[in-house]
């Protein structure tokens, strides 16, 4: 059991309910906000220096959880603690001062287009009144850390490519030495080769600086390369949580297996994948009982009425009445070829054959 | 046997008042009847533009500067827009990424399907409706008849894309160009849609050009794969050969940089730098500044496509003379 002081993020029972039909006054006032996916009873923790991934498809609630943790949204229920300190429902400014930063999905919207890059990077520091020489040096240091040059600080975002902008976002996230970095689909908008650069950069920085990441993604392969532990979200609930290698090689929840099977595999040319049934559900009308049952190949009568609770099984937490049957339903794959923990190789491209 | 589609030395330029750049350069490939050709590449490589060029959807300032495109031996790139119209839909159909903008938002999907079928096949309304029902069932739309009166925005993204597929196949075209058909969909749907595309084209003998940045999806769907880099063809060949033993350093690097689930928590191989934009292509081989095994000749001269083990790759290292000539290789 990791020491309590070593837990950077502790989330317990996080719940965000749908607002419901808006009242007349609110409808007159109009919207203008982004739709909120519901989240129910999500709990997990992240020890220092590790990466925890939240994986799910659209509508699963990943962004909602990220925003609640960041303090931008107020959850309906639940407890969030960063470095042991409770984030009581309240404003962003009070709750997360200096402790938390975020990297976003869209490299073209995450930097103010009218600001010089150095101003954007310095913002976490300048927001608390720091300025002058020390900040300038820190900005230059951050730029070097992410593989750019200090002169780039004077340029504007539109002068950079998508991958470079993500590097700048990472530099901004690191500037104030946060305890936790939330990475919300940081490479989903990038090309594969650029993605590799960014993921490697994030991993190298984690080793070097002892960073802690909450990594949100819909891509299981990306998650597998970055995360020590993973939680699988479906319609706002955790279906399975545990070490990533377990989830990938021997999933205990049918939805996890569906996601694993859905990853296109280059090595399996023209393979016949088991075709998942049905469509992703409508978040406004979730199915009864276990929300996954309409699409589940193992669904039985009980699944329709009784929602399964998370329970421990084979080293993971799983919410499924038939998790034991998954042992035989999936032929557990051979254990993957990695050592636990992060292996940081040098920069030699391994793909060259002579 | 003449190939169904042949593209020869296609060049597309984007012209501006002050600058012009070549976005597709000297591209040649063929598609045989009934085969699935995958075109992969990263953003800016020119893969979507290739599809646009074939469909004659290039708007100024984009213009085809050179080359020929033939369908069934007949040149189609020189046809006037009016002469090309009858081809679109009946001989060449398209499936794009954003289904919502591919469908008419103010027409029910039933009406769009029925009208398309009736016009192209000169059937009576009843016959067209029957065929439309059959198509919708084939693409796996639940509750077919009820769906006829649905508007596009009432359907989910996955269902919309199924409708688009149905529309594309409705006219029984010889060739379908699918440009990132699943990029906007969830992972669990991508396999379904791609499987449908492959199955339906197999059943009808339709050729497909499958354009995607997702090499894994292409691997499962295509018979042959073409890799584009900076507007030029880097490598082309049967999917198994190309993906398991790629000959071009870019293809190798691309494949190696994809995260793999059987190697968790490991550092990914990466290619340094970024793909050059059309206006700033380097001399010689466009990949040479990023290539770990580039030789002098790569900097000076663009390599032609050289055949090796059933694939053709544009790389000097495959030319026995060139590789032996210089002994210097820039080390990995």
């Amino acid at each position, binding site marked *: 059991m990791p020491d309590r002081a070593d837990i950077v993020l502790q989330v317990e029972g996080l719940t965000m309910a749908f607002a419901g039909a808006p009242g007349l006054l609110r409808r007159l006032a109009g919207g203008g906000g982004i739709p909120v996916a519901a989240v129910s009873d999500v709990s997990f923790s992240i020890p220092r220096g590790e990466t925890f991934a939240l994986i799910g498809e659209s509508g699963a609630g990943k962004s909602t959880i990220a925003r609640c943790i960041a303090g931008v949204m107020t959850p309906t229920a639940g407890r969030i603690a960063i470095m042991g300190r409770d984030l009581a429902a309240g404003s962003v400014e009070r709750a997360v001062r200096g402790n938390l*930063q975020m990297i976003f999905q869209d490299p073209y919207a995450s930097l103010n287009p009218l600001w010089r890059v150095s101003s954007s990077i310095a913002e976490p520091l300048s927001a608390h009144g720091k300025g002058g020489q020390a900040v300038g040096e820190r900005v230059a240091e951050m730029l070097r850390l992410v593989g750019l040059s200090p002169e780039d600080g004077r340029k504007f975002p539109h002068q950079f490519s998508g991958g470079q902008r993500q590097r700048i976002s990472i530099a901004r996230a690191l500037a104030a030495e946060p305890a936790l970095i939330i990475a919300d689909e940081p490479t989903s908008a990038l090309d594969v080769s650029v993605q590799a650069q960014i993921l490697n950069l994030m991993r190298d920085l984690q080793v070097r600086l002892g960073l802690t990441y909450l990594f949100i993604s819909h891509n299981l392969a990306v998650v597998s390369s970055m995360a020590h532990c993973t939680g699988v979200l479906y319609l706002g609930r955790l279906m399975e949580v545990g070490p990533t290698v377990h989830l990938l090689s021997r999933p205990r929840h049918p939805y996890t297996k569906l996601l694993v099977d859905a990853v296109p595999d280059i090595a399996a040319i023209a393979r016949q994948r088991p075709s998942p049934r049905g469509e992703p559900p409508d978040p406004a009308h979730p199915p009864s009982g276990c929300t996954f049952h309409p699409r589940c190949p193992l669904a039985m009568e009980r699944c329709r009425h009784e929602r399964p609770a998370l329970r421990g099984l084979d080293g993971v937490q799983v919410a499924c009445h038939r998790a034991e049957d998954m042992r035989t339903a999936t032929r557990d794959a051979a254990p993957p070829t990695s050592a636990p923990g992060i292996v940081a190789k040098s920069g030699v491209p391994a793909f060259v054959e002579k | 046997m003449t190939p169904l589609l042949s593209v020869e030395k296609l060049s597309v330029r984007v012209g501006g008042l002050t600058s012009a750049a070549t976005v597709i350069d000297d591209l040649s490939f063929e598609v045989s009847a009934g085969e699935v050709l995958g075109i992969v590449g990263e953003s800016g490589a020119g893969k979507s533009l290739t599809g646009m060029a074939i469909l004659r959807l290039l708007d100024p300032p984009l213009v085809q500067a050179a080359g020929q495109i033939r369908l069934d031996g007949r040149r189609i790139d020189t046809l006037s827009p009016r002469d090309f119209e009858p081809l679109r839909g009946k001989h060449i159909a398209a499936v794009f990424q954003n289904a919502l903008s591919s469908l008419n938002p103010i027409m029910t999907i039933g009406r769009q399907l029925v009208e398309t079928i009736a016009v192209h096949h000169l059937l009576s309304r009843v016959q067209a409706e029957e065929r439309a029902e059959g198509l919708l069932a084939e693409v796996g739309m639940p509750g077919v008849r009820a769906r006829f009166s649905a508007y596009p925005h009432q359907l989910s993204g996955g269902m919309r894309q199924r409708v688009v597929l149905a529309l594309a196949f409705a006219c029984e075209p010889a060739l379908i160009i699918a440009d990132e058909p699943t990029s906007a969909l969830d992972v669990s749907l991508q396999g379904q849609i791609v499987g449908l595309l492959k199955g339906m084209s197999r059943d009808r003998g339709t050729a497909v050009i499958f354009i995607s940045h997702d090499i894994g999806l292409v691997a499962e769907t295509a018979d042959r794969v073409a890799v584009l880099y900076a507007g030029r063809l880097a490598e082309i060949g049967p999917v198994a050969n190309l993906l398991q033993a790629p000959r071009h350093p870019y293809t190798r690097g691309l494949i190696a940089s994809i995260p793999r689930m059987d190697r968790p928590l490991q550092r990914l191989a990466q290619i340094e730098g970024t793909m050059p934009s059309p206006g700033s292509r380097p001399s010689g081989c466009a990949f040479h500044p990023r290539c770990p095994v580039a030789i002098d000749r790569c900097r000076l001269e663009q390599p032609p496509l050289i055949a090796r083990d059933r694939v053709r790759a544009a790389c000097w290292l495959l030319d026995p003379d060139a590789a032996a000539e210089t002994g210097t290789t820039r080390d990995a």
Partner: protein
Amino acid sequence: MRLEILKAPVAFWSALVLACLCIAAFGAPLLAPYDAFDPGSANVADARLPPGSHGLFGDSYPLGTDPQGRDLLSAMMYGLRTSLAVGFGSVALAALMGVTLGLLSGYFGGILDAVVMRIADIQLSLPPILVALLIDGVTLAMLDRARYDLLAVPTLILAISTSLWVQFARTVRARTQIEKNKDYVLAARISGVGMFRVLTAHILPNVGVPALVIATVNLAVAILVEATLSFLGVGVPATQPSLGTLVRIGNEFLFSGDWWMSILPGGLLVAVALSINLLGDWLRDRLDPTTRTP
């Protein structure tokens, strides 16, 4: 951008004309032959003289005189000054009110947004002239003549800006609603940047450009509204005529052949409005890529 204006002849000439007019207007006390606002300079004996005439005492009137014997050229210059001042002033005030309200209601939403937008909707359904008339009339009724004359221009500015602010507010509100959800705003909030700074340093610069565009469009509108009000007699006082007043005064004599007294000030109004609009078109195309004509 300053150099690029040379490439567009229409915009260039408009800017030149406008610049000359501004100099003439605001330099009127120095440049005009007579002080048109000084009742003493008007010589009733010289009333209604055609352009190019000379008065009884040898004064030359290049553009003629008005029914009260004022030199028309000077009157036009002073009148232009009033028109431009009211025009710029009301647009500036409307922009200030509209942008601020738009930012606040777009960012915070809720009750504030509802209230502001309903007021805006009501405002829009009232014609600008009527609103201005109303405010002007109320002020006239509340103050005695002398104080009203003093406050005439500020009252006019307030009255006209009341009907113009809505456009600013709506556009800025719409753009703010989009911008506030962008990631860089979120990043700033997470970094602990205060609300005021988020609004002024991040959102305002990114939503402000359309406000500039609206301002140029409405400048001509404001000038013409003022002219209309003065023409109707409820604008500036008659002792400090604006172009609209001159048109009104000269109108009575139009059909007796003394055309210059209304046509010349009217023509100047047209020239001002036209050059502002042409310059504004060019500015709009340069600043807002979404309205660019291919």
